[in-house]
């Protein structure tokens, strides 16, 4: 399948859905982690009632680090969502890394009895969507349009045909 480099590429609906989902996830992460960090900051705690401020003072460094990581994750998700909507191939990889880490963290939380099922569901949907062949193809096509040197050669085409043929043979 040699690609016509000049052909236009319209963003598939599935990619739009994916981009929006990642954006919302990033936004939630950013807002919540920013709020948490603000609450932890000394200046804000001075404005809070003394009993709440004393509770905040007991917050451990580990929680602060978690909030900071969530902020970074939110930032990464926001950036990758914009890249996804623009069909940038780096965004696909960035989103995959972020979701992998997030899922890993959520699984660790689950084993500790602190599962966040909504985050688990959203990240799972995002990963399976990113792994959809059509979505990957959309990014690949866009990448080839950007970088004509990456267009598959006739030999690579032949190898892919052989692979597909092998699939059929083995399937039988």
């Amino acid at each position, binding site marked *: 399948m040699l690609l016509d480099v000049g052909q236009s590429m319209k963003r598939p609906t599935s990619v739009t859905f994916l981009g929006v989902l990642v954006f919302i996830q990033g936004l939630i992460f950013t807002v919540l982690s920013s709020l948490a960090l603000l609450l932890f900051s000394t200046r804000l705690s001075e404005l809070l009632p003394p009993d709440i401020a004393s509770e905040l003072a007991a917050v451990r460094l580990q929680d602060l680090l978690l909030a900071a990581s969530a902020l970074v994750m939110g930032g990464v998700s926001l950036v990758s969502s914009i890249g996804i909507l623009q069909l940038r191939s780096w965004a696909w990889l960035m989103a995959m*890394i972020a979701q992998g880490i997030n*899922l890993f963290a959520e*699984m660790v939380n689950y084993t500790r009895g602190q599962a966040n099922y909504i985050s688990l569901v959203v990240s*799972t949907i995002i990963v399976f969507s990113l792994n959809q062949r059509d979505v990957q193809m959309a990014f690949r096509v866009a990448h080839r349009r950007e970088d004509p040197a990456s267009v598959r050669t006739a030999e690579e085409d032949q190898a892919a045909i052989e*692979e*597909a043929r*092998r*699939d059929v*043979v083995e399937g039988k």
Partner: protein
Amino acid sequence: MTDPPCNLFIGPPLATDSEHSSISAADIALLRRFEPIARFTYGEQFYPMDVDRYLAASRLCRQRPYDIAEELVPRGAITEQLLTQPRRDVPGTVYYLSFADSLNPAQVLNFYRNSTLRHFHAGSGRLARVGLTARLADLLFSITLLLRGRVPGGLAADAALRYQALQAEDERYCYYGRVVRENGYVALQYWFFYAFNDWRSSFNGFNDHESDWEMITVYVVETADGTPEPCWLAYSSHEFKGDDLRRRWDDPDIERHGEHPVIYVGAGSHANYFFRGEYLPAAEVPYSGGLLRAWRRVQRFWRITLRQGDEYSDLPDLGFFRIPFVDYARGDGLCIGPGQMHTWELHLLQATPEQPAPAWVDGFRGLWGLYTRDPVAGEDAPAGPKYNRDGTVRKMWYDPLGWGGLDKVPPPHLTAPVLEQQRQQRLAEQQELQEHIRQLTARLMGLEVEAEAIQGLYHLQARLVDLQCQIRHTCDELDTLKARYATNNQVLESFALYAQQLASGVRGDPRAHLRLPQVPSSPADLRLGRLAETWSALSIGLLLLGSGGITLFFASAWGTGLLALLGFYFFIEALFRRQVQTLIRYFAVGMALLSTLVLLYEFFWPVMVTLILLAGILIIVENVKELAT
């Protein structure tokens, strides 16, 4: 409607025993004309030899079940009569020859110091070319060698010394010729007998065994004026068979010197290859076929049904069930054949008018070397050219065409007549179909008219129901026939195109029949750095040591530690193979699958109810849409 049998005369479908067992002077000339050039790898210890000298230096032994092996005929005393005399014995008894004895470690070391093997360089090791799981499987395979029957250490060295002594007395390189005429083809079989297969002990391969029979076939057709024309080649390679073994004679990739095809012989394994290079013929772990098939089903479901993963390949091949072994067919060693430094001595497996066929061909069903009682038989010696280890006849012997997948392929000069015959059959079928369609149409119309006539007559309701049923069935049958008629028309059109192609002399793609051909490793595979090779050699051992260390010193965090260790290992592997992106995808998808399982476990009924609700809403939406339109 079945196809009538093929009437075109293309020779007897199966040659009779007498035709198989005799050979004419013209056949011998054909064997000589197309005899191959064998190129060996530097370091090879054994070359094709004659059977007589091997027999003269061997003992005949017997192994009865639950008994110790006994020597029946001592070394140097084997005669044709002793070897081939009919024997009746308890079931499970194995007769075998024994050529070599086991040397002690000092003698083996001395042999390797003085042999050409010390100059053999394996290059990029086999372990560096495959994944972590395959390397683990390799480790397990090595352990199984300790448990199952195997050729004792030092046997290969002694066999090599004995063979070299024989060659020093009288240097000869032989093949055994056999000619079979079948279905318009003349199959010229070149059988090679080796005293030993030292693939495992000398070249880190899959197995060792005493004696080795390998074979290549040149398929020739004789044109109307009797001129022989070579058209196909098939080389034996391990246990493979079928279309992938053969190549078309006019394939531009095939190396030939005039009319002599070139074989690249695997070092130690003596498998035959068309191209120079290093092959990775992965051996399947015994009894793992069911798991592999299940894994392939999962792959198809993942890729095709769920449309997940990369374009053509996503889930990794289950390397755990395949043990990789490099077969070195470099062709940088000895060359034997016409125009080379060493030429062939022809022996025959069939009778000529002057002399009978060797008696051992039919008469000796035993093994041609040591019987190790290996349950997977990889280390047991093979039987002769005609027989399998269990005494049944080999496919390459009784079906030289089918072995190379040629039983379905007409010879080139008969393709056009076969095509024409097939066309005539299809035309006849079309006429039959036309007539059948006409009859059915008439019947259908009659049934419909009858149904219309009795419509509304309450006392004939039962008949009406019966008629409607018949109409339905007839409609279906008619539709099937019409579809077949239409398909046949398209087939006939393609026949015309193919006939034109044949008439123009174009034979199409010479590799169209290949599915999984054996090809040497690519240069990229062989360019793995020294670091990667070292890592490959050490990784499994380090992984096991690391796991042990974690268990001993960090028992409380055993699970986490092991996971971290595995993660680190996979990352290093991915770095060496430039597959970090793939690793990231596998990791994320793996976590997503795990999360799905967790979610299903925690919310099974809510998920089910949600799915049912969604299905209900979807049905309502679709129906409302339909109503609206």
